[in-house]
């Protein structure tokens, strides 16, 4: 279970405050969707949870299964079971995708006191999982994300998630850039991982993804906070009417275009 309480975050080197007292509880086994206007702080939330530099937590906490994430190094958060599928996956020239994944899988196993995966077992597993996501062997050999199309990068994120088997998965706009078929593949990949021990935060702008990955809870985020929480019908409502009414009800004036 992930419990975020009263999270306040500002940029480290600027006065800009982005998260302004965010509360969120994600129970084990559940899928939560977060929707919200551009710039409301969704990616910032996922970066802060995963430990990216450049942000300062001025107040609040984020506890995953009893462990305070905000005190941990990024690698320790990963070993504790947190995974972020990036909105903009990072290219790493010179590091092979396969080497990267094997290093990550074994580093996490080591941190948890488990034995490293043998190369044969690793290969077997990655081939099967890559195949399910229609990622071909040639892409596994290439440097991480270098020269990958937008959709390939997103599928590569889901492959990493499938290999690392995290407890708490955050998907930041994984659907953007995916064609209809790829979206299906990704959703199938996510659904295959659903289990009573694993939870998801799915950040998206579109109801379409939520047709495939059925959320238990939907949150609307704006101006650094969760404004409203409801069931799947909330996403449908936003799809139909936009955010204006919700924002107005909370006294937030939509910025002029």
């Amino acid at each position: 279970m992930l419990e975020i309480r009263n999270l306040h975050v500002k940029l480290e080197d600027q006065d800009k405050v982005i998260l302004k007292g965010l509360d969120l509880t994600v129970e084990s086994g559940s899928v939560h969707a977060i929707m919200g206007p551009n710039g409301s702080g969704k990616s910032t939330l996922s970066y802060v949870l995963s430990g990216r530099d450049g942000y300062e937590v001025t107040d609040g906490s984020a506890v995953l299964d009893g462990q305070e994430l905000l005190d941990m190094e990024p690698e320790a958060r990963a070993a504790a079971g947190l995974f972020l599928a990036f909105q903009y996956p990072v290219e790493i020239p010179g590091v092979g995708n396969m080497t990267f994944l094997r290093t990550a899988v074994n580093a996490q196993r080591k941190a948890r006191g488990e034995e490293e995966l043998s190369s044969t077992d690793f290969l077997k597993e990655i081939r099967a999982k890559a195949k399910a996501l229609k990622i071909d062997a040639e892409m596994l050999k290439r440097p991480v994300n270098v020269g990958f199309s937008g959709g390939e990068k997103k599928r590569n994120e889901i492959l990493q998630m499938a290999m690392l088997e995290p407890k708490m998965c955050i998907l930041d706009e994984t659907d953007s850039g995916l064609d209809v078929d790829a979206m299906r593949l990704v959703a199938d990949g996510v659904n295959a991982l659903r289990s009573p021990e694993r939870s998801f935060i799915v950040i998206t702008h579109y109801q379409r993804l939520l047709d495939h990955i059925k959320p238990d809870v939907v949150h609307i985020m704006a101006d650094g906070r969760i404004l409203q929480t409801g069931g799947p019908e909330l996403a449908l409502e936003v799809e139909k009417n936009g955010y204006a009414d919700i924002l107005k009800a909370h006294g937030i004036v939509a910025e002029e275009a």
Partner: protein
Amino acid sequence: MMATLDKATALDARLARLSVPAGGFAAKARREALERLSAAGFPGRRDEYWRWTNPTAFAAPEPARAEVPAAQPEMFDGFGRIRLVFTDGVFDAAASDALSGEEGIEITRLAEAPDVNWAASVYGTLEAAGQVPVLRPFATLNTVAATDGLLIRVTGRVKRPVNVIYRHKSEVSDPILHHVIRLEPGAEMTLLENGPSGARFNKVIEVEVAEGARFHHIRAQGPDHKRQAITHIFARIAEGALFKSFTLTVNGRLTRNECVLWLDGDNAVAHVAGAALGDGADGGFHHDDTVFVTHDALNGESRQVFKKVLKNAAVGVFQGKILVKPGAQKTDGYQISQSLLLDAASQFLGKPELEIYADDVKCSHGSTTGAIDPTALYYLRSRGVPLEEAKSLLVLSFLADAIDEIEDPALKDEIVARLEAWLATHRG
């Protein structure tokens, strides 16, 4: 006037400590070299070619004391090589394989070869040719005073690599070694060099690569942090011949590796690459790669790929030049030198140069300095890769282009393994 006098004095002081070997096939070359050296003197800090590297340590009468490095597991184990060991510059026959017996290759020693006709035409000749347009007096000093070295003549395609292993056991050793290699037309060999060599090391390799011959060279310098080394490779590459050299340097207080390549026949190929990892803690790290490639024939191809990773106020230098002579049409010259600075105190100085006197050529060069990409580092860590391991991965990826210059996959793996071991023990 004063400067000239000082130079002469410094040279005299240096020469006074050396016992110049007499007699033998090299006697004439040594005499001529001494004349050249007396005219040139040692370089000073004002010399343009030594702007970024202080030559004093190489000119000084005595070497600086250098503590003996801890023993390392032997490299190139399992490569079926011909092992030849020099300890502080002295050939160690007991620790070495037999010099003779391998088909297609004759190996003798400079110190033991009163008359080796083929070597007489090479010894000091390529070194002398390499003095234009820039003087390289420490190579000339080497020709004058080398006490030993290998004379290798290759007549066939030799499968087993020749592995010259250097060992450093004395804190005050000052070896001067000079190897001469001639590959006859169509011949092929691989030269492996590794190990710490002495407190101060001056080494020259002269290589004649005749028509259609292929010369492969892989060298691992160090780890031997306190030593100071100046090395030169002079190679003449004939028509359709190939020269490939890769050097890995892990630490060393002061290193200057010069490589002077002369593409003298049509369709010659010369690649030289280097990967250096330097930690300036514990007395400093200064690594200088100075390369001079001359295209003197048609359709030649040359590549220079140099990468340096520097931390704790380490200094990296690259001086690389491609000279395309009149008439050397269709030349394809490439040069890249890059450094990765792991902290703000480290420094990279690069001077890439092109001088082209032919109109139908393709030459490019580039030089960059950068730091570890924080976003890539975060991405790796967010996948559970610990900070230091993530840094090592990015360092290895930075060096990949240079390491990829190694053709043989097994040798490449050996170099990567060496690098990984070094990175694992030098974190932070």
